[in-house]
């Protein structure tokens, strides 16, 4: 054994120390975070570990009302799929629907009732118990009601449908107020007005894209954000390639290419606001060429006389030949379909334009036929909801009432007008005058941030509800929305909150249900009893009812997709869907004493309804011959659009469009939506201003240059992005970003174009003409971080996306896909 002296010892200790230190650092550098595996000593009753449970419910990420199926594992929601039995979604879902899970599991939810202790907007929140919170609001409402000022209570909510609308109405009746206001930025007021004017109906029609042969869309981004994108997508796919040797063709007329424009076979750039004029020119062509042979053809010809293709060519920016060609094809192809959407409807001439566009369907004989425009029957529940939808003008009235002190209490439910209304409306300042603002929202959005009291609601995956989709699918259909997980936080079902408040304020009122679930059951019992077979109680009858529900769902699917391959399998699909949700049965059968339980027929119906998630009536609306009133025909015409701001000072027309990801901004707090590249620009996490490349070159702007977009009403800063498919005098910007509140993912990101919109309204409906603001661009000389996921979006002749022309199948037969033998003789 060698002797070690002190020096050696110290050296060794030093070396060892350094080595250990380095090793420790290395170890620290590469180690995994510790995670604990939590066993289930007492397994919960309502699920089996390792087995997925599926619950059917309804998506509420937008107003389309898709049926969804949520996969849960160990009591947690894992994945959302479309409900295959639901007629709207038919097993499909859009990106926003998929991201619903991040609404549920959003880190920025309001987790408990809160009271504002500082000034409004100061963000000093004091957590409360529900008892305290409810007693605060009930106390105030009780005071108002007893003093006969119940009418000073306003409930401002996102749009409600079905029996939830009924609940809201009854709640307001209980309080003694008529101020129930629904506010959605994109509520289709102009389209409803146009439908009403032409056909006297107050329902949105069903556009049967799946069976149409020729679709002309005037600014309707039917695949992106317009009405029911998933269902339109289904129709689009089936029309395109779902039918044997029979491919539907799509035309899009709009100033800036939307997702639907990109999908279209032909994209026609038109000057903003002139879509209706183009439609009239098409109508003129159809009538003058004898394409319309109705009794009132002369009236039409007279009304359309000023709108010849040649006359409007310059005004609309669309060549007369193009208009004539599209019109001829439209009239000569059957069934064809003309739809007009937000792009055309959000102008000063919006209702006139949509009337003109919808009238094309009348002239081409597309009403009530497959592949055309089908009228929807009145929904089973929720009548009158449409009347509650506030337009921009009625919101201004509300604001005025608030300023005048006519509103004492404002209850806000998920609506966010502070974000989705122009600054010019002054809504924020008006709301600030209201003495008490109570928010039922799940998130701290801009409007909720102004509240005095927050009574947070469940998200839709924790809550009860039901839905009768609008636009419907041509027949009556509905779906139940049920909780798929137990509530994450100390939040409440909106309905439960309202019921509790109503009970406290007016114990003798008509609202007697204790919970939303109970309320819904009672409402559905009415539907059941209307439809139920007479003899009840026998096992056979129960089975029949259950089977009937399934069958109805199956028929619904079959009907919605009559020509698709999948249609034949639809009943099987529906059955499979029910089979799939079978494990959920344990979760919904809540009878405490199974042995002594004799389910009545309604229980059976209710259970199978929950399982299938969908209910339908296999009936179409009775469709007599449709006539258009002579006065309507006489009055038909579209004025030139009016824009706020002069074209000299403000050379560009701003087109704020609903973002596919964020919609009207309600999706901005979902990280998946922030991270989903915008389809047309590949931008993530931000706002941008689309501008024609040629215009950008003239202005000396490059991608990412920050410009101030100045309208007569204000200025926002946003980076420029050249966009090849936009008219030179138009700039476009997505709505959705620019939140000042709304959680970590949304706040302080991008800019909100709604902010600078001029208060330009469509005169008939009073809805905001959001495409009618002119702006100018002031380069700031600064650059902004424009994050995109794409490189070069030109394929340089590499044939990455190959195309073929219809009717050239023989030519391509030779290049048919070979099963490539693996000829890589080694390496």
């Amino acid at each position, binding site marked *: 054994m060698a002797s070690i002296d002190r020096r050696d010892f110290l050296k060794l200790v030093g070396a060892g120390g350094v080595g250990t230190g380095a090793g420790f650092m290395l170890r620290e550098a590469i180690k995994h975070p510790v995670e604990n595996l939590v066993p289930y000593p007492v397994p919960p009753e309502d699920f089996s570990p390792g087995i997925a449970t599926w619950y059917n419910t309804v998506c509420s990420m937008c107003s389309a009302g898709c049926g969804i199926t949520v996969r849960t594992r160990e009591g947690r929601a894992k994945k959302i799929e479309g409900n295959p039995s639901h007629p709207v979604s038919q097993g*499909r879902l859009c990106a926003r629907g998929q991201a619903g899970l991040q609404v549920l599991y959003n880190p920025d939810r309001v987790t408990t009732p809160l009271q504002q202790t500082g000034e409004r907007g100061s963000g000093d929140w004091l957590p409360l118990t529900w008892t305290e919170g409810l007693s605060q609001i009930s106390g105030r409402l009780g005071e108002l009601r007893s003093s006969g000022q119940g009418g000073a209570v306003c409930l401002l909510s996102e749009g409600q449908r079905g029996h939830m609308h009924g609940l809201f109405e009854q709640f307001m009746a209980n309080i003694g107020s008529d101020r129930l206001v629904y506010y959605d930025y994109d509520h289709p007021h102009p389209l409803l007005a146009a439908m009403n004017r032409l056909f006297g109906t107050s329902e949105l029609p069903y556009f049967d894209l799946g069976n149409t042969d020729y679709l002309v869309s005037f600014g309707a981004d039917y695949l992106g954000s317009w009405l029911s994108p998933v269902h339109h997508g289904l129709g689009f*796919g089936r029309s395109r390639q779902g039918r044997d040797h029979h491919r539907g063709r799509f035309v899009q007329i709009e100033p800036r290419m939307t997702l639907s424009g*990109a999908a279209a076979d032909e994209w026609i750039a038109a000057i903003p606001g002139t879509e209706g004029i183009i439609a009239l020119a098409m109508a003129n062509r159809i009538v003058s060429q004898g394409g319309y042979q109705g009794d009132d053809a002369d009236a039409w010809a007279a009304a359309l006389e000023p709108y010849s293709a040649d006359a409007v060519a310059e005004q609309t920016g669309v060549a007369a030949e193009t208009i004539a060609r599209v019109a001829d094809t439209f009239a000569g192809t059957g069934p064809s379909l003309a739809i007009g959407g937000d792009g055309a409807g959000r102008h000063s001439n919006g209702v006139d334009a949509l009337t003109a566009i919808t009238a094309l369907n009348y002239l081409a004989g597309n009403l009530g036929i497959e592949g055309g425009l089908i009228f929807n029957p009145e929904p089973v529940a929720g009548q009158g909801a449409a009347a509650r939808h506030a337009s921009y003008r009625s919101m201004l009235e509300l604001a005025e009432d608030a300023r005048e002190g006519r509103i004492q209490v404002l209850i806000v439910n998920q609506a966010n007008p502070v974000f989705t209304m122009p600054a010019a409306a002054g809504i924020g300042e008006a709301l600030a005058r209201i003495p008490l603002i109570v928010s039922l929202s799940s998130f701290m959005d801009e409007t909720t941030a102004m509240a005095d009291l927050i009574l947070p609601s469940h998200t839709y995956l924790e809550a009860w509800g039901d839905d009768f989709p609008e636009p419907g699918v041509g027949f009556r259909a509905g779906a139940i929305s049920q909780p798929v997980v137990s509530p994450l936080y100390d939040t409440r079902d909106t309905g439960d909150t309202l019921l509790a408040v109503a009970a406290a304020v007016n114990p003798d009122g008509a609202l007697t249900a204790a919970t939303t679930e109970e309320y819904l059951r009672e409402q559905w019992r009415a539907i059941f009893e209307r439809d139920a077979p007479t003899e009840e109680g026998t096992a056979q009858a129960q089975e029949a009812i259950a089977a009937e529900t399934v069958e109805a769902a199956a028929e619904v699917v079959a009907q919605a997709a009559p020509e698709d391959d999948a249609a034949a399998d639809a009943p099987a699909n529906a059955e499979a869907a029910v089979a799939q949700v079978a494990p959920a049965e344990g979760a919904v059968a809540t009878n405490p004493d199974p042995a002594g339980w004799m389910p009545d027929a309604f229980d059976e119906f209710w259970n199978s309804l929950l399982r299938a998630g969908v209910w339908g009536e296999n009936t179409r609306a009775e469709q007599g011959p449709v006539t258009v009133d002579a006065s309507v025909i006489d009055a038909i015409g579209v004025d030139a659009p009016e824009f706020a701001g002069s074209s000299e000072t403000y050379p560009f027309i701003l087109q704020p469009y609903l973002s596919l990801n964020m919609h009207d901004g309600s999706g901005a707090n979902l990280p998946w939506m922030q991270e989903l590249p915008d389809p047309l620009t590949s931008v993530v996490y931000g706002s941008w201003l689309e501008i024609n490349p040629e215009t950008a070159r003239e202005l000396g702007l490059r991608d990412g240059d920050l410009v101030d977009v100045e309208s007569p009403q204000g200025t926002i800063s946003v980076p420029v992005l050249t966009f090849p498919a936009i008219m030179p005098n138009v700039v476009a910007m997505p709505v959705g970003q620019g939140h000042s509140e709304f959680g970590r993912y949304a706040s302080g990101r991008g800019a909100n174009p709604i902010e600078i919109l001029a208060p330009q309204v469509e005169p008939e409906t009073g809805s905001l003409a959001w495409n009618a603001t002119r702006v100018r661009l002031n380069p700031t000389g600064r650059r902004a971080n424009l994050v995109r996921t794409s490189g070069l979006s030109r394929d340089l002749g590499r044939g990455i996306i190959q195309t073929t*022309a219809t009717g050239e199948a023989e030519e391509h037969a030779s290049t*048919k*896909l070979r099963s490539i033998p693996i000829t890589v003789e080694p390496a």
Partner: protein
Amino acid sequence: MSFIDDFLASWREYREPGYYDGFDYHWTMSVDLDRCTGCGACITACQAENNIPIVGEDAIARGREMQWIRIEKYWEGEFPDVKLRFIPMLCQHCDAAPCETVCPVSATYHNQDGLNAQVYNRCIGTRSCAVYCPYEVRYFNYNNHHWDAPLEQQLNPDVSVREKGVMEKCSFCIQRIRQAKDVAKDEGRRVQDGDVQPACVQTCPTEALVFGDQNDPDSRVSQTMNDERAYHVLEELNTAPSVVYLRKVETDAV
């Protein structure tokens, strides 16, 4: 000399270039470009199903997006005669995959279902597979990813969460395939057409994506492969992809 015979027999077997004729299943996807609208539902569906992390704005700005399926877009022409075409790009599960041969540790290989499998635990992060992949559909974990609580409660327990230094890519939702195979095995049958769909296929609103077994001549995907519009992206590279694209139909005058 049975030993020599055995030797020669196995030698011949191991010298067989394809080695794929005997796939149990040959999972294949077809993408109808005439139906695809580029809406991106597949991207989010995939992100939800496969625990794909939220990488954040900074990471994407540095080119580190993490989406197993992405929509590539290509403009054609200039205003006003301009077209925008989309193509979903995901792992092509090539039968002659360049990425497989380059991995020094066999972290990626071809499995008996014709899938290009990625074994996360085996990966040492040389990233050469991503270089060799001409479709650029392999994504690397540049760092550990974090889910703000309670977002992690959404994570799919059937799919592992990948750590830093590991390559990942589309698996055709192998966890779903596995489950379908288990069910089929319990029932003593083969997996039938329609039994299994990856998340992207399931959600696609326009039904542009079709998934199935190429070995089954009656499956929908086999039929689409016989469509005259079928082609492979970068066919000239002879990677024998398992993703088939159907040409977009474009008519000039409507």
